[in-house]
């Protein structure tokens, strides 16, 4: 029983890959003047890498990128991404802050960044995290798409063992799910913020993960992170830690936002959503909407700052 509209879509439960694809098409059909769907590439198994573009005009406007689900088992992130998409179309023209952002910038949202892995979590292995490409010479499948970027690639904080959950892959950008974003960001050339959303452990992180060298914009990114998690906590009191990846969670090489920051995208952040470990990746569906709502406040802080501080 497919919902007939995005108003009837149940944001408070987990959905299959096809249901999310259908949602994306409905949202585009309902909002032709605001939302379009771009296919930036294909996954290893040939699934489309769909990106929703929210734009009120112009060409190559300064833009904000948000992705969810790069680690497929982190289901609350794809579910939150779906809620974000509806929130954007609901609030444009109503919420002055979001309207101001979209009157000057575009927003790109990739909800299912690892579709092969996400499909696999629904049908074969709920604990799957990586891509689904076989590794030549190994029985183990998949690469960690958050260790495959050309930023400190191959350094400490990733594994060279194909059977590891943090296997970096045979070379940087070897995974089509990663390479497609790399090519899109480079061809667009005007991204001003890049936000990659994971779960769990309730953290807001900025570069670097592969080195202890502070980024040159450390002070600004740190202060903005503090403002964002303060706004997040204002709704339900959810407490976040924040800081650079290497100082706050662990050393990780080949990470997404290290690469985006090194491309010149100053406002590069990673979220680790709920919870702190009671349920981990198996977060109950009744926490999807509260998680999305509180995260949205933090996203608005990051996006508003980006819009108010052009560079």
């Amino acid at each position, binding site marked *: *029983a497919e919902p007939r509209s995005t108003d009837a879509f*149940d944001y408070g*439960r*987990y959905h299959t890959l096809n249901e999310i694809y259908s949602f994306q098409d409905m949202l585009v059909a309902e909002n032709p003047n605001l939302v379009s769907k771009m296919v930036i590439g294909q996954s290893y198994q040939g699934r489309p890498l769909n990106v929703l573009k929210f734009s009120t005009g112009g060409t190559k406007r300064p833009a904000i990128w948000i992705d969810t689900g790069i680690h497929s088992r982190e289901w609350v992130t794809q579910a939150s991404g779906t809620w974000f998409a509806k929130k954007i179309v609901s609030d444009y023209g109503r919420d002055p802050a979001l309207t101001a952002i979209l009157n000057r910038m575009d927003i790109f949202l990739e909800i299912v960044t690892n579709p092969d892995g996400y499909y696999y979590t629904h*049908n*074969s*292995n*709920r*604990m799957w995290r990586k891509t689904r490409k076989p590794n030549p010479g190994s029985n183990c499948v998949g690469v960690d798409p958050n260790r495959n970027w050309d930023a400190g690639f191959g350094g400490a904080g990733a*594994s060279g*063992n194909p*059977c*590891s*959950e943090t296997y970096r892959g045979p070379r940087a950008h070897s995974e089509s799910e990663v390479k497609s974003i790399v090519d899109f960001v480079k061809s667009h050339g005007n991204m001003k913020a890049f936000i990659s959303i994971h779960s*769990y*452990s309730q953290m807001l992180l900025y570069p670097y993960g592969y080195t202890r060298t502070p980024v040159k914009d450390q002070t600004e990114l740190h202060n903005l992170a503090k403002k964002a998690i303060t706004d997040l906590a204002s709704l339900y009191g959810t407490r976040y830690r924040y800081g650079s990846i*290497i*100082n*706050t*969670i*662990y*050393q990780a090489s080949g990470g997404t936002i290290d690469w985006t920051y090194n491309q010149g995208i100053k406002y590069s952040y990673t979220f680790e959503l709920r919870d702190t*470990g*009671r*349920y*981990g*990746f*198996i977060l*109950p*569906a009744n926490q999807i909407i509260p998680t999305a709502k509180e995260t949205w406040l933090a996203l608005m802080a990051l996006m508003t700052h980006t819009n108010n501080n052009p560079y």
Partner: protein
Amino acid sequence: KETFDGHQVLRIKAKDDVQLSLIKAMEDMVEFELDFWMEGSDVSTPVDVRVPVHTLQPVKRYLDSRNLQYSIMIEDLQVMLDEEQEEMDSVARD
């Protein structure tokens, strides 16, 4: 579909850097078949790790013998997964 009956998620807390390195060394012990859910960069961040039922005993022996403190965060992963699936099925039926 892979099942996880009896798999447990352990939360391990290092008291100091020596203990943290003992925990990190477990990443290379492929015989334990561990799945690190959350890793820690320092002693303030616990390490969460999923342990298959058939390696639970040797893993707990490893932890106990090195006086590594741990708690059981998830007693039986499959029970939680069944609840999640049941909820998805029931909503789909509705």
